[in-house]
């Protein structure tokens, strides 16, 4: 019953907001009441940080379990497909988008008088905490943001302190022979977990192609793989089963880090770090 009343009051409040644009505008400065997110990464930031009822809609991708860690939560929000028209009709007072979100849509929304905050892709671990705090300020949920951010920083710090002296060599190998080198979030995850990234040793930057020959010559002790879609075959993944690779790694040297943990720089990267650190510890134990 109390919930129903609360909801009713919310609706009344929203209607009041809709009728009086002057009030809405004044409130934007403090905290937005009607927020729409249109990018996979900002969707998850917003779901983590928003107050109840503040977030109106998230993008379609947010509910894809392969891409989004928060796919279950995302199902309780209405979905948007990133079009200016559908978003305008939701009457938001704040839109959160990525810096690479369709620029024409962003310009259109701004032209219509809607405030759009753009979030750059997060590629380092310190940036995750920074972005959490910044968006907390934008959404008016500083305390919540501070709590999540400091918890995250403490988790990462613990991982860094637990790093072994002898760091095992790890290679990241995705579909079609792509790897993640310096300047990528995956690289940060690997090094934080106490591993050496061979792509970085080879001087590769960002997401780039790593020929199988070079990977084999580096003789990685651990191969980090992404989501494999193993029930839906494609040649892109055949490379991961190449005999040369199987030969180099033996049976124990593969670990799966699902793409959803590393696509976006979110506090959930600690899951990936933990998984890799455990695997690294196992390698160390085998060596002794």
């Amino acid at each position, binding site marked *: 019953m109390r919930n129903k009343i609360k909801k009713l009051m919310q609706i009344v409040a929203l209607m009041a907001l809709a009728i009086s644009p002057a009030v809405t505008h004044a409130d934007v400065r403090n905290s937005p009441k009607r927020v729409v997110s249109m990018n996979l990464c900002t969707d998850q930031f917003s779901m983590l940080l928003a107050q109840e009822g503040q977030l109106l809609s998230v993008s379609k991708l947010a509910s894809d379990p392969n891409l989004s860690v928060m796919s279950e939560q995302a199902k309780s929000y209405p979905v948007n497909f990133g079009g200016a028209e559908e978003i305008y009709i939701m009457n938001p007072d704040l839109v959160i988008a990525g810096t690479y979100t369709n620029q024409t849509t962003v310009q259109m929304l701004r032209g219509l008088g809607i405030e759009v905050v753009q979030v750059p892709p997060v590629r380092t671990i310190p940036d995750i905490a920074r972005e959490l705090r910044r968006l907390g300020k934008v959404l008016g949920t500083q305390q919540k943001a501070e709590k999540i951010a400091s918890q995250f920083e403490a988790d990462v710090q613990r991982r860094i302190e637990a790093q072994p002296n002898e760091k095992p060599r790890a290679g990241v190998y995705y579909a*079609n022979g792509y790897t993640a080198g310096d300047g990528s979030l995956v690289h940060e995850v690997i090094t934080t977990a106490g591993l050496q990234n061979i792509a970085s040793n080879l001087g590769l930057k960002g997401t780039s192609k790593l020929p199988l020959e070079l990977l084999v010559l580096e003789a990685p002790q651990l191969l980090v793989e992404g989501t494999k879609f193993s029930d839906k075959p*494609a040649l892109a993944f055949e490379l991961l089963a190449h005999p040369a690779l199987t030969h*180099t790694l033996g049976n124990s040297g593969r670990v799966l880090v699902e793409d959803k943990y590393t696509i976006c720089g979110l506090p959930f990267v600690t899951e990936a770090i933990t998984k890799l650190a455990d695997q690294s510890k196992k390698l160390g134990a085998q060596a002794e």
Partner: protein
Amino acid sequence: MTKHPDAPLIAILCLLAVALFFTSLMIGAADLTFAQLFDAVISADETPVSTVFWEIRIPRALLGLITGATLGLSGAVLQGLLRNPLAEPGLIGVSSSASLGAVIAIYTGLTLTVPFALPAFALLGAGTAAVLLPMLAGGRGQTLTLILAGVAISSIATALTSLALNLSPNPFAAMEIVFWMLGSLNDRSMQHLYIIAPFILVGWSLLFITGRGLNALSLGEETAHTMGVSLPRLRFCAIAGTAASVGAVTAVTGTIGFIGLIVPHLLRRLVGGEPQRLLLPSALAGACLLTLADITVKLFGPQSNLKLGVLTALVGAPFFLWLIIKQRRALI
């Protein structure tokens, strides 16, 4: 047995093939010196270098030779059978139909449970095209109808391949259209070779025994008949042989065009118009040409992601034009 009239040519082509094979082994994404490779090969220890050599470079170089030989040989046989200088597995749609068969086998997940489904489906695709083609083109091997029928079969097969890949639920499948249309030897393994080997051997045997029949056929169907050549049997050998061998190589390398077209023409100037004498040199020269093309791809480097078919088309298409112009002159 009398000395083969083309013995010097065959010897030269063999030497060239061996030389190109070893050159191909020397070149790869990793900068390995001859000494490093040699040490890894002669020593019994397993090192990363020996893994690179045996499991990445050897299969690729072998596959290059086999694919080139198959395309050259089948081109020579098809040109003899259809008595048409433009017959070639790529141009007449046999390769793209083989691709379609392979795509269906791979992306439905069938090859995960039955590895032999891959060459078998490719053979089925190639065979369908090879049987349909003469029916669509009509008898007497008229160039125009043959090419038109080939273009039609080829477009249908390519369209269905794209459709199948677009329908695949795997997000990477759609990007692989390029591989199936242009072909590549990149990172194929010994497993691929083992799976297709039986099909290749059967295919080559069938193709090589067509020689005498093709010679007789070059004098006309009736003459061939009076010489005791069974035309249905000849057609079966040529078509089944092409389907098996081209189907098998296409299943692991994708569609590689123009090799089968150019090679017999280049050699006809050296060995003359007799189809039988053309077969072995065509196979050898095809192996050389494809290995050369693959070496060039490797020299461009792995980041370029250049496909083999791009190179063969760059060389093949101008040659094709030249052939058309020459034919037009002959008609005038």
